[in-house]
């Protein structure tokens, strides 16, 4: 049923160059408009009161045409909630940044404003109220991995009031850190750094399971089930609300690089093997137990190499310097030489580099030519690229600073935990700039070296930060929020699992249908999706992919969007070819806002419809636009790989656009009527260039042959 809404038109302090007479007159005549009110500043207190009154009167159905909702909506929402009113049905139209500020022609800008208001009225007419809902979950978190990152995670989560189970595969906690004789930049040993934390773990809220491995995990944020197996092959399961992965790293073992003789000559070791030796205070030549008087260290073994690990391992330079200093503590006259390509010591680690040089450590910029054994000596030939000289010398130890690699087992776990893996094998962060510890899967966090090589202090910071992210999610066990997101009607689900496979955050789960309702035995193995709306990110990817319309965003149903498409395009035709632009409310909304703020001009024969993510737009939505008379359809999305929704929403959109183009081509129309463009708010001209191009196409091609009952004339005439 279509309901009418009130309309508010804001004049921005009477500064907007729009013809408000046209606006009130034309909007007043729209069937879905109940009343039209002009206000001067909807963002100021007096007008906020007005809005509150109108919301009360009309059950919340209200269209506000003003500046960008990115600025006013938070204020209006907050004001209405403080009055106990529900703002969730309000629809916004941006007549400032999208019309008045970017089009020179007053009438055209006004016409466009009317059309877009008509669209918002259509959207409003079937809008739902979105209630605040709550659910209770267990205040329990599972931490996998008992190194410094896992230990700190357990302590932080316990400090925030959660019960924690800390799972470690080895006999003891502490990981690699326990084996470091010196931890940069503090200069203390790993065991010293760990001591206070191991004591803090002795808390009622923390359970430690050593010699235990995670086999697989089921469930979702708020109700995961972790299946465990001990080294005695006993199996167990653990109910938990979130999972922290802290399984650290693995040191590369360079047995296959034959120039270093690792694995063949016992006096050739890795840097961590040396650390262990130093921690145990057993510095001697492994071959014969002899004294260590000379050491050569080789940097970048396996790192910065197209063959093994492309990137830099970050830690190894500092590790090598730390170990050099430790050797010198034990053998003050030891001759230590470090062969390097670039010494990489961040910030104050530079000072340790300086200290080591002062204490006599030699740095040789160059590479090893070869290593061989001569009697009981390890002989090394190397090239010094600065002296342009080769040197040949004996060394008691040859220590290889080997690449830091992701730990074993994370690929297996990803199969049930659903997080993504980076090219280099580490766990992929949700978004490298701002969301390092989150993974693709909601409720699964990754901290410490499992995400990238990290110093101990960085792993600690990670763990503390991730604890906050979990706390934000679980809210102490009672999750309460506006249930804005996807809602699934199980009866309509055909069990195709597209939503579960493609949801950027892994929210829909496939469950046996028998879990939902009783069925005959024959149909027992049919799967259906379930979606917990409170876990949903509200992007709409599931909706655009769902073949049966079973899953829909409760604030932007198919019915709403299709009605809006039809309404904004009213009057489109051969006299006035229209470009319809769907834009995501992430990078695109900002880019278009900035275009407005900077008053960059583009043609008014454009209509804009916001979607939460470009991935919400389906092929059907695109085709609907043509059915309603659009001449061109543009999709404005975030930059490649920069989709705000876990990096994949816009890739789904790209597929939809590609297929829509193919469909148009297949039926004899021009595929170029549809275009997808990537927005970037720092480069607003990206939008103006894109929309100009699409407007040009709209003008060149005119409306599609099929609209307004012109059926029968199917093929486009091509020149």
């Amino acid at each position, binding site marked *: 049923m279509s309901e009418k809404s009130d309309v508010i038109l804001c004049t921005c302090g009477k500064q907007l160059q729009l013809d408000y007479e046209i606006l009130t007159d034309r909007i007043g005549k729209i069937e879905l408009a109940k009343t039209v009110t002009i206000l001067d500043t909807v963002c100021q207190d007096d007008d906020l009161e007005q809005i509150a009154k109108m919301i009360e009167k009309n059950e919340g159905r209200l269209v506000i045409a003003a500046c960008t909702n990115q600025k006013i909506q938070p204020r209006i929402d907050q004001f209405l909630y403080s009055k106990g009113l529900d703002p969730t049905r309000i629809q916004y139209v941006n007549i400032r940044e999208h019309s008045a500020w970017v089009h020179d022609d007053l009438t055209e800008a006004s016409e466009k404003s009317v059309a877009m208001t008509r669209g918002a009225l259509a959207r409003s007419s079937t809008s739902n109220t979105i209630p605040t809902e709550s659910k209770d979950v267990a205040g329990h978190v599972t931490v996998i991995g008992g190194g410094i990152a896992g230990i700190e995670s357990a302590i932080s989560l316990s400090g925030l009031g959660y019960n924690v189970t800390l799972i470690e595969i080895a006999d003891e906690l502490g990981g690699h850190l326990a084996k470091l004789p010196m931890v940069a930049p503090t200069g203390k040993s790993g065991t010293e750094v760990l001591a206070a934390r191991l004591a803090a773990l002795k808390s009622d809220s923390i359970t430690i399971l050593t010699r235990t491995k995670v086999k697989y995990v089921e469930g979702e944020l708020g109700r995961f089930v972790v299946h465990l197996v001990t080294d005695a092959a006993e199996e167990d399961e653990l109910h938990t609300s979130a999972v922290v992965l802290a399984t650290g790293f693995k040191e590369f073992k360079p047995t296959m690089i034959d120039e270093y003789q690792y694995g063949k000559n016992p006096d050739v070791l890795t840097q961590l093997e040396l650390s262990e030796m130093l921690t145990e205070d057993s510095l001697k030549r492994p071959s014969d137990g002899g004294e260590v008087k000379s050491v050569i260290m080789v940097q970048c073994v396996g790192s910065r190499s197209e063959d093994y690990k492309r990137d830099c391992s970050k830690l190894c330079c500092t590790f090598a310097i730390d170990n050099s200093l430790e050797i010198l503590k034990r053998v003050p006259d030891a001759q230590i030489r470090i062969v390097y390509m670039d010494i990489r010591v961040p910030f104050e680690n530079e000072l340790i580099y300086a200290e080591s040089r002062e204490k006599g450590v030699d740095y040789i910029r160059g*590479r090893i*030519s070869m290593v061989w054994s001569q009697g009981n000596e390890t002989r090394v030939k*190397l*090239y010094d*690229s600065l002296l342009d000289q080769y040197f040949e010398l004996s060394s008691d130890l040859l220590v290889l600073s080997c690449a830091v690699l992701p730990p074993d087992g994370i690929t297996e776990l990803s199969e049930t935990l659903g997080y993504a893996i980076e090219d280099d094998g580490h766990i992929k962060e949700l978004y490298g700039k701002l969301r390092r510890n989150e993974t693709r899967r909601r409720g699964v966090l990754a901290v410490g070296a499992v995400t990238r090589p990290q110093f101990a202090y960085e792993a600690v910071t990670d763990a503390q930060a991730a604890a906050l992210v979990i706390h934000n999610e679980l809210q102490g066990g009672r999750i309460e929020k506006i249930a804005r997101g996807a809602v699934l009607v199980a009866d309509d689900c055909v069990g195709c699992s597209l939503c579960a496979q493609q949801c950027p955050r892994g929210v829909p789960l496939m469950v046996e249908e028998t879990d939902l309702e009783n069925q005959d035995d024959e149909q027992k193995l049919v799967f259906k999706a379930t979606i917990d709306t409170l876990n949903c990110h509200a992007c709409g990817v599931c909706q655009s992919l769902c073949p049966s319309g079973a899953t829909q965003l409760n604030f932007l149903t198919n019915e709403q969007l299709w009605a809006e498409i039809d309404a904004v395009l009213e009057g489109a035709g051969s006299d006035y070819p229209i470009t319809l632009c769907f834009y995501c409310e992430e990078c695109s909304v900002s880019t278009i806002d900035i275009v407005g703020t900077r008053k960059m001009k583009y043609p008014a024969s454009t209509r804009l419809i916001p979607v939460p993510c470009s991935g919400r737009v389906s092929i059907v939505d695109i085709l609907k636009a043509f059915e309603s008379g659009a001449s061109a359809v543009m999709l404005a999305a975030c930059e490649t790989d920069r989709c705000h929704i876990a990096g994949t929403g816009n890739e789904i959109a790209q597929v939809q656009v590609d297929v829509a183009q193919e469909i148009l081509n297949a039926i004899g129309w021009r595929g170029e009527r549809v275009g997808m463009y990537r927005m970037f708010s720092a480069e607003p001209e990206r939008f103006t260039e894109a929309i100009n191009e699409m407007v040009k196409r709209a003008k060149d091609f005119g409306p599609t042959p099929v609209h307004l009952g012109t059926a029968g004339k199917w093929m486009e005439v091509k020149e």
Partner: protein
Amino acid sequence: MSDAEEQTGPPITLVEPIDVSKLDSEFRKTIRSMPNGEELMACFACSTCTAACPIANQWDYKPHQLIRMILLGMRDDVLSSKEIWECLTCFQCQERCPQKVRVTDIFFDCKNLAAEEGMIPDNIIGLARELAEKGQLYVVTADWEREDLGLEPEVPGLSANGIREILKTTRTNKIVGGES
């Protein structure tokens, strides 16, 4: 304050630098477009190639320096260098390069460029002449040795005509001064 410090004008220096703008900035593009030059720019000057080379201590320009010189556009110095001809083509530099720069193959490219400009060591021209004329570098001279071992004195199937034909149309012909 001393007199020297009071002086103005450009500082005095004995350094006579190479003027980079006079170098051939297209040279690296040329190399890059050649059969094995694509990875050229991946070089980060670690000098692993030089460390791996068994003879570079005999050279004025080390392998990593030659690659740098290519990147900088020191075309003439590279193409006229004796080093590219002394390259053993043992491929150890290439095998060990962490950035997969095809160092040995690039030296082959350089030799081809040098050859195009006629900068070839005499002995190599001699070999080219052998090939152009005889279609092979080695011919059987002691056929009795073959016969002693039960081999046919003439190598079965051997025919150098095809090779000679081909080399008449390619650069070798130019190198040995054959008719075009």
